[in-house]
């Protein structure tokens, strides 16, 4: 593999170059106009406004490790690793949601916001943008990265210890608990449980002990992990109304909660979602009978079961049951890039030397990319990966 040493560009060596590129360009933020199109130096989501629309802002590595330990889409994670920076574009749906979140009345029941849109338009990343905002505002983040993962491909289903009718998913529950712990470490010692929970003959959690203990118990004793998750959800819901902390419930792919599962019992009869303890507790969580926070959801077809590929509208994906459960909610449409955002995205890739094709920076190249991707963010990203 040889790279042409073009005097005007940096060599794409790997991790080193983009970092110094970013550092170099950081100093020139005021003077260079192409940068102003695709980047902004405002890294606090709380201060994002319409003037930042279309621009990328940087998420610090610290935040990546804590808040987004399990939330980002896999391709984005790869991109972060390649560019050695996590830059998220500020877009209108997310700005709209941030506006609502900033004006939330914490005495009122939690409002539900649902991102919907076609495949690859950026629902998950808009969700992550709002999660970042809430994390910076010191909310407690309850993030379920993909609810679809809980209703399919589950190897070991145990009969629930708490309720014989339901099923536990120990592996998924313990992974989730680990990530939850990383995201909300500082809260876990502050919040105290309000009841005594008995795990088995020898272990129990006393009333008044920190929530972190419950999480630890779940991580260590994998058998009780799902029950630990249930307890966490119950306690958080109960206590968020008291005002000690603000709770953000973020679920990606919430239509999994009311769909069908591909899991079967030993006698091959199908399991309904409500028979899974985790789903049952999560449904209680997204109801709006608690105060002191907000619920942000996305409905997605990717990863969903038994739903046609072209389905993207809320009622199609949620079904009657789901819609009735979430009603009233605010639907927010996430659509393809508008021309400004498209330009910005191309600029960002060019800056990071991601587009190596010699025609990539020309007008015809851009037009071709526009045509091929139809300004769909996911599609554009996949196309540019080949260039």
């Amino acid at each position, binding site marked *: 593999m040889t790279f042409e040493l073009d005097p005007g560009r940096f060599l794409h060596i790997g991790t080193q170059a983009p970092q110094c590129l970013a550092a170099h360009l950081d100093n020139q933020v005021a003077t260079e106009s192409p940068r102003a199109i695709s980047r902004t130096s405002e890294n606090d989501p709380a201060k994002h406004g319409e003037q930042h629309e279309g621009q990328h802002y940087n998420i610090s590595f610290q935040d990546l490790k804590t808040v987004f330990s399990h939330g980002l889409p896999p391709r984005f994670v790869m991109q972060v690793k390649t560019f050695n920076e996590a830059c998220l574009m500020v877009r209108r749906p997310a700005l709209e949601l941030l*506006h*609502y979140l900033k*004006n939330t*009345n914490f*005495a*009122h*029941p939690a*409002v539900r916001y649902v991102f919907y849109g076609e495949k690859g338009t950026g629902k998950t990343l808009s969700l992550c943008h709002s999660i970042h905002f809430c994390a910076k505002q010191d909310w407690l983040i309850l993030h379920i990265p993909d609810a679809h993962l809980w209703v399919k491909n589950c190897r070991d289903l145990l009969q629930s210890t708490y309720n014989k009718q339901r099923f536990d998913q120990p592996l998924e529950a313990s992974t989730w608990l680990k990530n939850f712990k990383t995201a909300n470490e500082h809260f876990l010692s502050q919040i105290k449980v309000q009841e005594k929970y008995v795990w088995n003959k020898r272990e129990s959690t006393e009333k008044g002990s920190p929530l972190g203990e419950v999480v630890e118990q779940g991580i260590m004793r994998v058998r009780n992990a799902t029950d630990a998750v249930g307890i966490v959800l119950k306690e958080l819901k109960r206590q968020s109304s008291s005002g000690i902390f603000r709770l953000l419930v973020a679920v990606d792919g919430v239509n999994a909660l009311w769909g069908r599962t591909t899991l079967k019992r030993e006698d091959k009869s199908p399991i309904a979602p409500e028979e899974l303890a985790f789903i049952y507790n999560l449904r209680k969580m997204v109801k*709006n*009978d608690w*105060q002191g926070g907000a619920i942000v959801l996305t409905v997605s077809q990717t990863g969903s079961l038994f739903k046609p590929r072209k389905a993207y*509208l*809320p*009622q*199609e994906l949620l079904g009657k049951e789901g819609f*009735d459960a979430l*009603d*009233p*909610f*605010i*639907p*927010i*449409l996430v659509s393809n890039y508008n021309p400004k955002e498209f330009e910005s995205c191309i600029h960002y890739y060019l800056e990071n030397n991601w587009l190596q094709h010699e025609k990539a920076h020309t007008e015809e190249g851009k037009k071709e990319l526009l045509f091929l991707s139809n300004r769909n963010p996911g599609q554009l990203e996949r196309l540019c990966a080949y260039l």
Partner: protein
Amino acid sequence: MAAARLSASLVLQPRARTLRAFSTSVSPATRSPRPSPSTTERTSRYGRPLRRKALPPRTEKMAVDQDWPSVYPVAAPFKPSAVPLPVRMGYPVKRGVPMAKEGNLELLKIPNFLHLTPVAIKRHCEALKDFCTEWPAALDSDEKCRKHFPIEIDTAGYVSAGPSVRNPKARVVTLRKTEEWEKTKTEADMEEYVWKDSSSEKNILETLLQIKAAEKNLELSKEELLGTEEVEEYRKSVVSLKNEGDNENTLSQYKESVKRLLNLT
């Protein structure tokens, strides 16, 4: 020559054969050339039996108090010569009148009930009476009838003027009896979304009650809450969303109504 013709007929098609048959039935004396035999002969030049001149129509001989059922005993097409009524039918040309009944195809096309005059029907009933039995004395009230014969079917007929004989309203047939199990019609069976008593109504009520409770504003009752303009708009948007499905219009309407309801900017 006749023999030659006969042998040729074996090759010809059956239709031609009947024509052949026709021509053979004609007596050989008249096989001399003459005009085509397909039209009815009217002239008397060739010695054919003459058709009588058209007689006056039967209507002129009808008395006013004649026995009509014997003129039209069964359903028969309209015969202008047999119906003494000066009926006209058709769309008039400019400065004209509707066409008279003679040779009027419109009168032939439509169904007529000339065979079912009241007199005729009376006679039918008289004839049928011998085969009928008495109405059962026990069925003297409506309830008893309904109890023993629960199914009632209502059909309706219509008389209307228009380009077509048929009236689509006549297709509606009502079945009167409702079964017990029809009362168990659930929400899943409903053809259309009804907002009253639906879970959407419950949800919005709970939400509003909680909001009011948070604002320490408990004076409003359930009916008042449901009667406000915002709730009305919300109800409309939910109904349209459920009945019409998702599209940009219904979704944005729903969004606006929820925003207004929950007091979000």
